[in-house]
């Protein structure tokens, strides 16, 4: 048994979600190899080689893979997959884009966003926005699987010493090109990797008052998130959305401010270790999942909280 993990990286460093995918791969049994497809990505490959539990790193270093275009990377992964029983990746936007193409090229199903490995062929995954957990069994000889990163502990980023091998084949489908990217630059930790997340909802009323979260986030080294209501109202950009169709987060501490707690939002954060809800509506559903609830007007509670921590 052997499993290939497709690394999520920016050509320089490995994304934390990959460490969770390595853990899931280890639970499937057998060797765990990591494929780093990128351009000038040797630093990312070295980071992958240092991850505990990884026995080999394959590097495909070519301009065709620089921006993780699914059309190109899927051809590469499908070719490399010939030697493996499983192909696994964290369910990031890049893997969600690429892995179903790999599965179709291999003529197998993809099992999306698994939460647990029950056995070599049986997995649990959420359906219906997380309202139901399904246990599914794959009959494919080769399995293509994406992993919900928050459901698996991260493998240790140091301690491994995997061999690094080059993959020479180049696949350029020639049907897509990268035009540009607008990625928010922030000194704060990444939403899906932060140990503390503070999120604002419709109760924030406007984009200006969302700044009340900044001081608290600075003090707690927290990432800032938002509910869909806050995104749809234009308070904050959509990459901050926590929920079923946004980011799935499970930090040590999640602070929900002015968020009522719609099921789609809960699906994105209810695996957090400690949940705090601040809302002036004492009947808000968010209080049903909160460890600590504070019924208060956020415009007075937030400055108080910032001063107290």
């Amino acid at each position, binding site marked *: 048994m052997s499993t290939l993990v497709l690394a999520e990286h920016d050509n320089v460093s490995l994304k934390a979600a990959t460490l969770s995918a390595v853990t899931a791969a280890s639970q499937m049994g057998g060797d765990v190899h990591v494929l780093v497809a990128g351009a000038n990505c040797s630093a990312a490959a070295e980071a992958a080689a240092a991850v505990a539990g990884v026995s080999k790193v394959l590097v495909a270093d070519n301009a065709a893979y620089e921006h993780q275009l699914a059309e190109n990377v899927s051809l590469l992964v499908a070719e490399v997959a010939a030697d493996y029983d499983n192909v696994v990746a964290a369910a990031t936007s890049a893997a969600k884009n690429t892995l179903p193409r790999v599965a179709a090229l291999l003529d197998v199903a993809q099992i*999306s966003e698994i939460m647990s490995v029950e056995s070599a062929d049986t997995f649990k995954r959420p359906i219906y926005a997380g309202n139901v957990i399904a246990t599914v069994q794959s*009959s494919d000889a080769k399995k293509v699987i994406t992993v919900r990163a928050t459901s698996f502990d991260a493998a240790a980023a140091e301690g491994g010493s995997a061999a690094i091998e080059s993959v020479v084949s180049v696949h350029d489908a020639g049907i897509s090109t990268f035009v540009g990217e607008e990625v928010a630059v922030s000194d704060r930790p990444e939403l899906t990797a932060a140990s503390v997340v503070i999120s604002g909802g419709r109760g924030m009323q406007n984009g200006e008052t969302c700044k009340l979260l900044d001081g608290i986030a600075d003090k707690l080294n927290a990432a800032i998130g938002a509910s869909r209501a806050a995104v749809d109202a234009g308070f904050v950009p959509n990459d901050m959305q926590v929920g079923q169709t946004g980011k799935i987060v499970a930090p040590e501490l999640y602070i929900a401010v002015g968020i009522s707690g719609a099921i789609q939002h809960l699906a994105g954060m209810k695996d957090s270790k400690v949940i705090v809800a601040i809302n002036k509506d004492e009947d808000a559903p968010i209080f049903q999942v909160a460890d600590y609830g504070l019924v208060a007007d956020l415009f007075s509670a937030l400055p108080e909280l910032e001063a107290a921590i």
Partner: protein
Amino acid sequence: MKVLVAVKRVVDYNVKVRAKADGSDVDLNNVKMAINPFCEIAVEEAVRLKEAGVATEVVAVSVGPKACQEQLRTALALGADRAIQVEVEGSVEPLVVAKLLKGVVEKEAPQLVILGKQSIDGDNNQTGQMLGALTNMAQGTFASEVKIDGDSVNVTREIDGGLQTVKLTLPAIVTTDLRLNEPRYASLPNIMKAKKKPLDVLTADDLGVAISSHVTQLRVEPPAERQAGIKVGDVAQLVDKLKNEAKVIA
């Protein structure tokens, strides 16, 4: 330019779906069904392309039992010109749906295929990408903007941390994210007109596709419930609890 739009019949997004007590499956008795919200956005985008004079014809397709004709009629009421139902019994896996859609793509030869990024029942997020691989078409998934530019299309995509724009050679595939557009409501005259629009029915045999199954659902269960915690009186008490009881802040 012909645009093909795929739509799926799913449980209405307001319905809170539960597992049956015996864990055999989800309980879908007498629940309201609707067009998958992401598919509705796909239809809207196709209709807007037609209204802008870019698309000449919008064809809606759905894979499912006869009941999915209801969702095809909805797509026709929203502005699609004609519809195709690919008749299958029960639920079919995304790979099979992609193979059936490939058959329809070969018949119809659209320049653009628009699908929802995922359906809100299985939450798989696979079909569009799989169709891309099977037809060797480029894909712009999780789209928040679609601009046709001659023989290519520029798609702005929602990715982790921001937005990415890719240029795809036509014919190509687009899967929709929530913020691509806000779908219109079908007007009563358009709902009446939709009843007269053509709706063809095809079978898997017609498309030369064998229905296969790769994944078996063994059981379903409700998610682990979180215990409700306590209400604190003020900010000072909250901070005290976080420091001394939960020990999550220093």
